């Protein structure tokens, strides 16, 4: 009896695997809905659209973006986590939704590690330390000395509690042992505007939107927190070159599918991402906006990235006592 049951179970498993294979071979047979948990036109949205354009050609179906903003990207991410795991709803998340969110939101309705199938990282968007152009310093070390000399004097502007620009500067200032006054804005656009105008003094942010300002000399870029310099602003030294190698941070973007999405479908999506990132035109578009093609792609690399990012941001955010809800 037991043997017959085992045989039936094996048969069922084999049938299921075969069915999934067939499903994956046919996939996709209709357009894929891609949730971007931020407003259209923002950094994540732009990166997603650049990569999705090429993925659409590879997969033979259109990938349509649905922008579901709110609550630091967690509303859209939660919607994706709870979606039917059939490969037709996927998510482009980032460092905020899958790295910082567990520490920021005590009631986070999803687990970035266990509620998703990890597809692939799409881009690294390096973070840099910027200052207003009238600051009387030119190097990262001089900036650090200035911040520490008069702890309450320089204001640190950021794009809102829990934003990449907020938590990355928390990491930077905690490493130098300072706590400058924080001035929150609604999005990094207005914060950048006020940095250009000289209203506040220091800001950490992903470089895509800041490149034109740095090139035009409207703000100072002190160091870029990645191991390599950026092709978009090649004159800006890395944090290692500037004497602070321990400060490494980037606002990566990555693709996720709801937990339970069949592995062949996840692999097919990951392969399409890979082929997009190898395409010279797509790479150029990403590099033009200051993003970098990640060194490692694929599900396993993304899973370890998410785990290491949660480990990295949680103590910084908890120590600063920041709460997102």
């Amino acid at each position, binding site marked *: 009896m037991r043997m017959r049951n085992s045989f039936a179970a094996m048969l069922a498993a084999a049938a299921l695997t075969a069915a999934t294979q067939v499903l994956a071979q046919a996939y996709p047979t209709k357009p894929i809905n891609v949730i971007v948990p931020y407003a259209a*036109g923002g950094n994540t949205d732009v990166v997603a659209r650049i990569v999705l354009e090429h993925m659409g050609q590879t997969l033979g179906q259109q990938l349509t973006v649905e922008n579901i903003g709110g*609550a630091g990207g967690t509303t859209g991410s939660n919607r994706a986590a709870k979606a039917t795991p059939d490969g037709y709803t996927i998510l482009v998340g980032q460092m905020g939704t899958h790295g910082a969110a567990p520490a920021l939101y005590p009631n986070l*309705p999803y687990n970035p590690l266990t509620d998703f199938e990890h597809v692939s990282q799409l881009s690294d968007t390096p973070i840099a330390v910027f200052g207003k152009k009238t600051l009387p310093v030119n190097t990262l070390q001089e900036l650090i000395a200035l911040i520490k000399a008069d702890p309450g004097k320089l204001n640190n502007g950021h794009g809102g*509690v829990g934003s990449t620009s907020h938590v990355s500067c928390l990491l930077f200032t905690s490493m130098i042992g300072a706590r400058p006054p924080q*001035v*929150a804005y609604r999005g990094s656009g207005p914060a950048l505007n006020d940095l*250009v105008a000289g209203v506040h003094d220091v800001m950490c942010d992903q470089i895509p939107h800041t490149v*034109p300002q740095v090139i035009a000399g409207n703000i100072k870029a002190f160091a870029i927190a990645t191991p390599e310099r950026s092709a978009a602003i090649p004159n800006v030294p890395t944090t290692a070159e500037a004497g602070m190698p321990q400060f490494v941070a980037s606002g990566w973007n990555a693709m996720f599918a709801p937990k339970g999405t069949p592995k062949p479908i996840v692999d097919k999506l990951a392969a399409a991402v890979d082929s997009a990132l190898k395409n010279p035109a797509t790479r150029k578009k990403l590099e033009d*906006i200051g993003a970098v093609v990640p060194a490692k792609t694929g599900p396993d690399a993304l899973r370890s990235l998410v785990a290491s990012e949660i480990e990295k941001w949680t103590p910084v955010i908890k120590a600063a006592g920041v709460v*997102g809800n």
Partner: protein
Amino acid sequence: MHSLGIAFDLLFGSPIILYSIIGLIWGIIGGSLPGISASITMALLLPFTYGMAPVQAIVLLACTYIGAEYGGSIPAILIRTPGTNSAAATVIDGYEMKRQGRAGEALGISLWSGVIGSLFGLLMLIMLTEPLSWVALAFKPTSYFALGILGLSVIASMTNGSLLKGLAAAVVGLMIATIGTDPISGVTRFTFGSPELLGGVEPVLIMIGVFAVSELMMQSGSKGLGGVSEQVRVRLPSLSMMNRLKRSQFIGCLLGTFEGLTPGGGGSIAAFLSYNEARRWSKEPEKFGKGSEEGVAAPETANNTVASAALIPLLSFGIPSSNSTAVLLGGLLIHGLLPGPRLFEQNADVVVGLYLGSFIATLAQILVGILLLPVCVWLVNRPRAYLAGFILALILSGIFTLNTSLADLGIALGMGLVGYLMRRAGYPLLPLILGVVLGHMVESSYRRSLLLSGGDHTIFLEDPIAVGLLLASFVFVTLSLVREFRDARNAKLKDAHA
């Protein structure tokens, strides 16, 4: 001269006219659907621009923006539902004109004023981008606080004779604006554990609720099924009317340019301020609120001017002043174009194309409007019962599309009930709307200013723009109160003589 050459090449050697007109029509359709904002209308087009040449993609998106800003006024006039936030002020006199059987005339005025506003904004964009771009940088958090206060000062003249009721409505609006995540500290306020409220309540839900849903409730309480018999034709203003509208359009142009230049605006403040100033400088201020042509012209000129003027900080700094310009920025970045001074040197064809496309779309707006609007007017002249059902379905589906959230539907319907009760009890609705739209800006700018100064209030006195705007607010409120007091006294004296 070089730019002229590029313009000729684009005009005759590329399908730029086609893209301008497609963008315009798509924008008008999207903008006129309640709940679908200009930015959503534009974002829906983004995937279609992937394969296009950059100049065509940007022209398509920019013309969609122009169309959507105009399109928002159509439902505001016809069904008391502002299609976009910036069309809220148009509801006041636009819908009143429609009720008087003058929908065709109101739509004609809004069309004409939209064209004037767009052309003026475009002129500013082409001629004065460099000198004007610095206005965006001159605006500090203290200035934004004062600008918000100036916007709120309009309440004093929108109270329908009862200052106390007006203030009460404004306080409710300001309270609604505090719902959601605190913009400075990240603490949640009045969300009652609901994740849907974490991001706050979108002003468009409140507007649709208190204007449109409450109107449907009012109508369902009245007898009769008949439609209003009126001409279906859209009537552009006559020469003498154009002459009369000049003053209010000039006010709209100035205030629209001002708001377009300052990031964080989006058109609603300029529209409300222009409405208020047009009334102050009008020869017939008593007609405002009762179907004044100038009351439609001023806000419609302002919000269309904003759409063009907002391109100034976007192109010169890459700083989007609204959600719509953020989508346009996304469009530029996707096509490998970096805004900033270098854009004008390295991608002159895109910049010239953008100017040219916007110009074509603005002129085409008159033709498209004349062809498209009679259908809309015919539609709203169907028997009232069917129309009410159609409008309810239209606004509910529009709201649901916004975030695909059932909570949003609940908020809009709940606010409809609040609006209905307020109208029954004689409370004005506009102060509530202004409170919702400006509350967030006033609060966050005030607290941001104090964070920058370490809690020192004298920071507001150190910023000349803030001082000027606060003084202007004080003068506006005082003048409005004096006028109200005088009107009340005159009415009393008249009664006594009678």
